[in-house]
């Protein structure tokens, strides 16, 4: 009788432990998926900004058809992308095409002084920053989740219940944010 009770007790303990670990993993998975949706919100904001930006720039940049079309095309691809890896590629392309647009815009003093353009530029800056911060937060959460499913004993549960590792949101060119020019 006593050995039987001990075995039952151990089994119950084991089941409770597994349930606890499983729930913890689910919580982490929800957390990083939620963090991903935060990035999505910001990316969508960027997509909404771009038509206005292109429209404003068109009035001044008569000789830069190619650059402007490149931005529009990259935006369309980013909007259409559905899987995470597609999205990453498209967003990276959009980022670089926007960067070249901004570089070209430097040559148009009238455009740079345009009030609408200045506002759009500020909006774009803040959106880019938000994307960066949301990405950082997502990567933090994804990293925590990945660590959890790969360490023992969670790894047993993860493999049994098919917890797949999270994909990090990485940028192709890790263009460090330029140190600011000090102006006084």
């Amino acid at each position: 009788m006593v050995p039987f009770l001990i075995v039952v007790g151990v089994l119950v303990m084991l089941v409770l432990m597994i349930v606890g670990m499983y729930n913890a993993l689910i919580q982490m998975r929800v957390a990083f998926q939620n963090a991903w949706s935060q990035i999505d919100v910001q990316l969508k904001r960027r997509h909404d900004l771009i038509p206005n930006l292109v429209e404003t720039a068109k009035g001044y940049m008569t000789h830069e058809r190619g650059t402007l079309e490149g931005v529009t095309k990259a935006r369309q691809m980013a909007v259409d992308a559905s899987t995470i890896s597609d999205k990453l590629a498209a967003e990276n392309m959009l980022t670089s095409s926007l960067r070249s647009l901004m570089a070209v815009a430097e040559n148009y003093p009238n455009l740079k002084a345009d009030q609408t353009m200045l506002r759009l530029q500020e909006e774009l800056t803040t959106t880019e920053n938000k994307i960066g911060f949301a990405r950082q937060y997502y990567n933090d959460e994804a990293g925590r989740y990945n660590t959890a499913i790969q360490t023992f004993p969670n790894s047993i549960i993860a493999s049994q219940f098919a917890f797949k590792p999270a994909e990090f949101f990485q940028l192709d060119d890790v263009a460090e944010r330029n140190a600011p020019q000090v102006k006084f």
Partner: protein
Amino acid sequence: MPYSFVEIQQSKSRSIQWSLAFLIALYVAGALLIVWVVKYYFLGTTLDLPSGLRRSPFDLLDPATLLWTAGGALALSAGHWLVATHALIDKTVQYMSGRVAADGKDDERVFRNIVAEASVATGGKYLIEPYLIPTTAMNAFALQDFQGRSVIGITEGLLKRLNREQLEAVVAHEAGHIASGDCLETTVTSVVFKAFDTICDVTRRMLFYSNISGSSRYSSSRREEKGGSFGALLLVIFLIALVLKFIGYLGSLFISRQREYRADAMAVRLTRNPLALAEALHIIDRRWKGGGIPGEAMDAIFILSPRQSAYDDQENLFSDLFSTHPPIKKRLGILLDMAHARESDLDKAMNKAKSRDEMLGNDPPAKTLKDIPGVAIPAPLATVGGAVIASGLGLPVVPVAKNLCPRCQVPLVPEVYEGVQIGRCTACLGALVGEMDVLHIVGTKSMQFDGRIQELARITREQVKVLKSNPFDHIYDQKSIVCPSCLDTNRRMTRRFVNPRYPVEVDKCKLCARVWFDRDELEILQCLYENENMAVNK
């Protein structure tokens, strides 16, 4: 040291319980002391027993007395706690005349955007509200309450003088405080212990005013009537105020200096830009940090302490206990190390600003504008009812009615100046302006100033070094004028500088916060502010 926001949020520290316990202990100890003193000295409870033996003095606190004293103290401290922490953000922000940053103005929208970015950086867990404090001082703070509402506030001076990267770094620092939870404990502790400081301030002001009127020749007769007992009472009040002040300082026992290093590290983690934060701290440190403005008593919530204290620059046990901020040099050193820069680099970058300061320090003429030939302000002359009045600058005039020029006793004419309503004296061209309106006038891009104003501004600027040695000394003038709006002869306007950066001497009413500018002084102030800000922004 946690490395991500996820980890930061998991390792929140909580020392609020300790400050609550301390508050209760303080009240209980205070109440017991008062009860004992009252019983022993005032009620004359005897210690002699019928048997001829003497009881120990502590026997006066029998269990029943102990119980009701402790109970009362407990109720009082609970009341204090509840009153202090109720709607604490609204109250604190209102206390500092803060307002939500407007969406309509370009520069304020940048600040709103930056705060929204910080919100995103914390995983959207905190909806941080952006607030602005209307003062030319430079500082930033974060507040949080038990309901999870959080606020990041900066002064308008900071908004105008920092570039976007520097602002991002400052806001990220404050967001670091909020995410790690030390903001909540700092806010609560500051608010709870601020009460003692405020009581002390009020008492000191009372004492001060009675002194002022006591030494002034107008009320010397009144002073004699009141006699010495009043003075003794004031002394007792002053001593109590000192004790309260000390208790207010004790609040900082619960605030660790380390949290500033931690918030700096988080700001760098977020923005990946240690240099911008170093620059921002350097700029703030070299300017007026807001000593003297409301909210100064809550120095722990700010990025750099607005109070000038020698302890802030030291590292020993006493400083660790009583200072809320670590030495600025050390903070800068850590940040510069991260950026692989040296302090000389920072200094070089700030060279222009620095050389401006040094230039002015050559030979500061300790003169007032009135002493300088050629730019002397003419004595006001006015014709009132056919009689010519020459009051002579600065002579105290006994006011007869409201809204008369304090110098010439001519009715002040309402005038719209830079979009703000002011009262102008048509005789001496002085102006009466509300305190908040001064900021508005100064902040508005204004017209060109003619050569005379420029010259006056240059001379005024040269005095800055003199002021720097003792910047917060208010200058109390025997010949101070009476506020035309309040007409309170007991509380005359005080002669002081608009602020140490802009050493224009004005008269300010402590009751209604209106400022009296003599002829040209308002224009000089505008000119100074404009010159300086143009130089900073370009």
